[in-house]
């Protein structure tokens, strides 16, 4: 079953074409990594998929239901109520974590469950505590974000996204703000999620990680998908540009 479908997505910023006709679909249980140089439109694609950015044209579907339709070349979004419902399908983990600094770790996770999803307090707290234990953060329950390392903060933000029980989880360069050691601890968490067949779309610069964790890797450059395939296909490609890019980053 297709969880996410994006068709012919185009996006301009002040006349600059950032996305030029991108199509992408993600099956349930699939892990898709998006790689490519800075400015290739990877993050913009993710921001369009997560409704943080409006597409200029193209279609966006979650679970086969339209979040945005293409009507004569113009993009028409579904009603606010429908978008709010579809928003429940996915979660997003940011590069800069974006935890709420004035909330404790526990409250960061439970607050939206309580005041958006209207869960009973006990259930929300149980859900959060279970996730914190899984991610090795049980003792940080009452800490505030500034008291945590970057890796811990990113794990809290993963827990916050998972607590909403999304069908699909997006990661926007989840380790770009972290040093190599902290990167490892966050990647470990994502690998574990992949083992549990969590559907994920990951924008990353960690080539080795993408190779290990992905079912499919997409290489983007200049607003188009230049190449895509299984990790083995992509790492064994004849495409000079892709080889060059991967070579640079994996240090070969």
């Amino acid at each position, binding site marked *: 079953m297709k969880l996410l479908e994006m068709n012919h997505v185009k996006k301009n910023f002040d006349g600059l074409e950032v996305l030029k006709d991108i199509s992408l679909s993600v099956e349930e249980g699939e892990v898709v990594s998006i790689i490519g140089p800075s400015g290739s439109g990877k993050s913009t694609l993710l921001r369009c998929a*997560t*409704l*943080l950015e409006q597409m200029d044209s193209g279609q966006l579907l979650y679970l086969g239901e339209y979040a945005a339709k293409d009507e004569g070349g113009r993009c028409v979004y579904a009603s606010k109520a429908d978008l*709010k419902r579809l*928003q*429940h399908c996915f*979660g*997003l983990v*940011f590069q*800069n974590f*974006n*935890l*709420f*600094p*004035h909330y404790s770790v526990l409250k960061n996770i439970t*607050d*939206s469950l309580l*005041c*958006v*999803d209207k869960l009973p307090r006990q259930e929300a707290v149980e859900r959060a505590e279970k996730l914190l234990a899984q991610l090795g953060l049980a003792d940080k329950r009452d800490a*505030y*974000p*500034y008291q945590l390392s970057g890796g811990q903060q990113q794990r809290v933000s993963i827990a*916050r*996204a998972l607590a*909403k029980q999304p069908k699909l989880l997006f990661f926007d360069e989840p380790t770009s703000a972290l040093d190599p050691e902290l990167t490892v601890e966050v990647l470990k968490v994502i690998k574990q999620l992949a083992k549990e067949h969590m559907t994920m779309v990951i924008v990353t610069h960690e080539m080795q990680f993408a190779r290990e964790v992905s079912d499919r890797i997409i290489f983007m450059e200049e607003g188009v998908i230049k190449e895509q395939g299984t990790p083995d296909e992509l790492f064994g490609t004849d495409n000079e540009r892709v080889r060059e890019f991967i070579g640079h980053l994996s240090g070969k």
Partner: protein
Amino acid sequence: MSIQVMLLQLGKGMIVSVEIFMLTLLFSLPLGLIVAFGRMSKNAVLRWITKVYISVMRGTPLMLQLLVVYFGPYYVFKIRIGSGYRFVAVIIAFAINYAAYFAEIYRSGIESMPVGQYEAAKVLGYGRAQTFFKIILPQVIKRILPSVTNEIITLVKDTSLAFAIAQAEMFTIAKQIAAAQTTIMPLMAAGVFYYIFNLIVATVMERVEKACSYYR
């Protein structure tokens, strides 16, 4: 006049000064937030109106604004004003003047918030009002506290401007006694009162800042 009587009179004036202070804050702090929303609105007309309002309030003397609010209804509309209006006029003039300053402070705080906080809230499903009041405003308040403290301290001293329309607050009374008794004492005493008032204000605000320092 004995010192006790003088202090008693000044004390009565002090109560009026404190009332002006409290009521001004009570009205201008929320009003300032509404003005700040107007100033940042997507609606160009609303944005322009609030911009002019802030400009006039900050660009003309508060003493003049007091006179306009107090005498305006009579001079412009020929409305007979009762003696009870004097205090009301003081509060109106102070509230709309301070709201303009507070609006700009709120705006600076709101605009300094990283966009990531809004985006995280949106992805988690928070509505617009929830995002503002639960996520943004608490952090804005922490950021703007030092500037707000500055304004509040200025307000304590500005209450003496009510003298311009003969509102019997502490400064007005101090000046009356000084003139009648030909002594500097009441003015000195009033100075001490204002100073202590502000010492209390500063201490309270320091406590509030401390209460907000559990996070960074």
